[in-house]
C-alpha cells in the first residue's frame, strides 16, 4: 500500500475557505501517522479528502497509484462520535462492513468474535449500543473498522470525547494492536502527547500558506512512556510548533 498526496488543495465553495493548502505527503505501508494542529486548520478536511468524502479542488490523491474516486472500504474511517448504528447490537454492528462486502456468514461470525475478543468485548456481543460506556462504544467502532482489513485506517480524534483515563487506556490498546498488526493508520488528534505516544511521524498542520508546517519523525522505541526525557522533549518541540504564530 502507498498513499500519495500531490499538491492537494481544498477550497470550500460556500465559505470560500482554503481549508487545505498545497499538501504533498506520502504515507508508507504499515506506518502510523499522526496529525496535529490548531482547531480549524484543516485536519478533518484532509482526512475527508483521503476518505473520498470530499474531492480536492486541485492536486490529486493516489492510492497504490490510482486516483481516489470516492469513499470505499479500503479506507475505513473511525469518527470522533462512534457512528455505531443504534438499531443493531454490538456484534451486528461489528459485522456491518463485512455484510456489505458479502463476506460468508461463518467468516463474519469468526472475524467479529476475533476482534471483539481483542477489544475485550466478547461478553458484550449481544448488548445494545446505548447500554455501553463511551469507551466501550469506541472500542466497538474500532473492532468494526478492523474487520475490513482496509489498506489504511483513518481516525478523526477517536478518543477525544472520552475522559483522560479512558482515552489513555484506549491509546495503549491501539498501540498494542498496531504493534501486532502493523496496519497503516492516519490518526488525527489535538493532543500532542497522544501523537508522540502513537506516531512514527507527526504531521503539524497550520493555517499558513502551506498546510503542512512540519513533519517530525518520532525515533522512540515502543512501548513508549510519557515521562521519558526524550518523550517530553518531542512533546515540547511539537507543542511549540503547533502554537507558533505565523
Amino acid at each position, binding site marked *: 500500500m502507498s498513499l500519495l498526496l500531490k499538491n492537494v488543495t481544498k477550497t470550500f465553495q460556500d465559505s470560500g475557505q482554503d481549508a487545505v493548502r498545497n499538501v504533498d505527503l506520502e504515507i508508507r505501508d504499515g506506518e502510523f501517522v499522526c496529525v496535529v494542529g490548531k482547531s480549524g486548520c484543516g485536519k478533518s478536511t484532509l482526512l475527508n479528502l483521503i*476518505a*473520498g*468524502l470530499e474531492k480536492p479542488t486541485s492536486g490529486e490523491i493516489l492510492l497504490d497509484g490510482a486516483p481516489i474516486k*470516492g*469513499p*470505499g*472500504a*479500503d*479506507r*475505513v*474511517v473511525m*469518527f470522533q*462520535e462512534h*457512528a455505531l*448504528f*443504534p*438499531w*443493531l447490537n454490538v456484534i451486528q454492528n461489528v459485522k*456491518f*462492513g463485512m*455484510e*456489505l*462486502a458479502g463476506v460468508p456468514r461463518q467468516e463474519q461470525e469468526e472475524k467479529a468474535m476475533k476482534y471483539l475478543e481483542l477489544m475485550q468485548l466478547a461478553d458484550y456481543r449481544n448488548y*445494545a*449500543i*446505548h*447500554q455501553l460506556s463511551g469507551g466501550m462504544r469506541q472500542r466497538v467502532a474500532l473492532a*468494526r473498522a478492523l474487520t*475490513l482489513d482496509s489498506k489504511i485506517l*483513518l481516525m478523526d480524534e477517536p478518543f477525544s470525547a472520552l475522559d483522560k483515563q479512558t482515552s489513555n487506556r484506549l491509546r495503549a490498546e491501539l498501540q498494542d494492536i498496531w504493534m501486532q498488526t502493523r496496519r497503516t493508520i492516519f490518526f488525527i488528534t489535538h493532543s500532542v502527547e497522544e501523537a508522540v505516544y502513537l506516531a512514527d511521524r507527526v504531521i503539524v498542520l497550520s493555517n499558513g500558506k502551506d498546510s503542512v508546517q512540519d513533519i517530525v519523525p518520532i525515533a522512540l522505541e515502543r512501548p513508549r512512556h510519557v515521562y521519558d526525557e526524550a518523550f517530553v522533549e518531542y512533546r515540547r518541540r511539537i507543542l511549540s510548533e503547533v502554537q507558533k504564530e505565523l
Partner: protein
Amino acid sequence: MTRKTKKENTKFIKLLQQLLFLLGIVALWQLLYFVGVDLLEFWKPYAMPSPAGVWKSLVRLIESGTLFTAIGNSLLRGMIGFLISVAFGTVLGFLMEHFPFLHQNMRPFVMGVQTLPSVCWVPFSILWFGLSEQAIIFVVIMGSAFSIAIATDNAIHNVPPIYKKAALTMGASQKQIYRKVILHACLPELISGLKQGWSFAWRALMSGEVMTTCIGLGQTLITGRNLADINQVMLVMIIIVLVGILIDQIFFRSLERRIYRKRGLA
C-alpha cells in the same frame, strides 16, 4: 420493596387515578342532567344526553348487532384507505426526498393540499364515485396520504449524516445506504408519522361516512340525528373516540415504544 414492584405500583395508582377521574366526570355529567333537565327543566330531555341514556343506547345497539357491524365496517374501510395512503405516501415522500427538484417544487404543493380539511374532499369524491365505498376511501386517502408523504420526507431527511458517511467509508453502495442505513435510521420518526397519518385517516373516514349512506359509525351517528336520539349520537361519538384511541394505543404506541426502548431513546 424492590424497584420494579414500586414502579408497577405507581403505574397502578396512576391508572386508578385516571379511572376515578373519568368516573367523576360521568357522575358530574349525570348530576348536570339531573339538575338541568329533571329539576329546573332548563333543557328538554331530547336536547341533552345522559350517561344512563347513553348506556341504554349502547345496550340496544349491541343487542341489535348494529354497533359491531358499524365498528367492523368503519375499521375495515379505514384500514384499506390507510394502507393505500401508506403505500402512496411513503413512495411520494421518498421521491420528494430523493429528487431535489421534487423537494423544491412538489413539497410546498403537497403541504398546501395537506392543509385542506378532509371534509372538503367529500363533494369532489361523491361527484367522482357516487355515494359509494370508493368515495369514502378516496376521502380517507386524500386526508392522510399527504401527511404521510411529508412525514416520510422529513424522516429520511433527518437521518444523521454520520450514519451515511460511516456506511460509505465501509464500502456501502447507494442501494445499501438506503436499505441498510436510512430505512432503519428513519424508522422511529416514520412510525410517528404513520401514527399521525392514522389519526388523519380516522377523522377523514368519519367526514366521509357522515356524508354517504354506507353502513358504519358515521352512518349510525346520522341515524341518531334522524331519529332525534341524542343519546345515540353521543354514544357513537364516544365510540369513535375510543376506537381511534384504541388503534393508536395498541398498535402505534406499542410499536413506537418497542423501537424507542430497543434503541435506548425512551
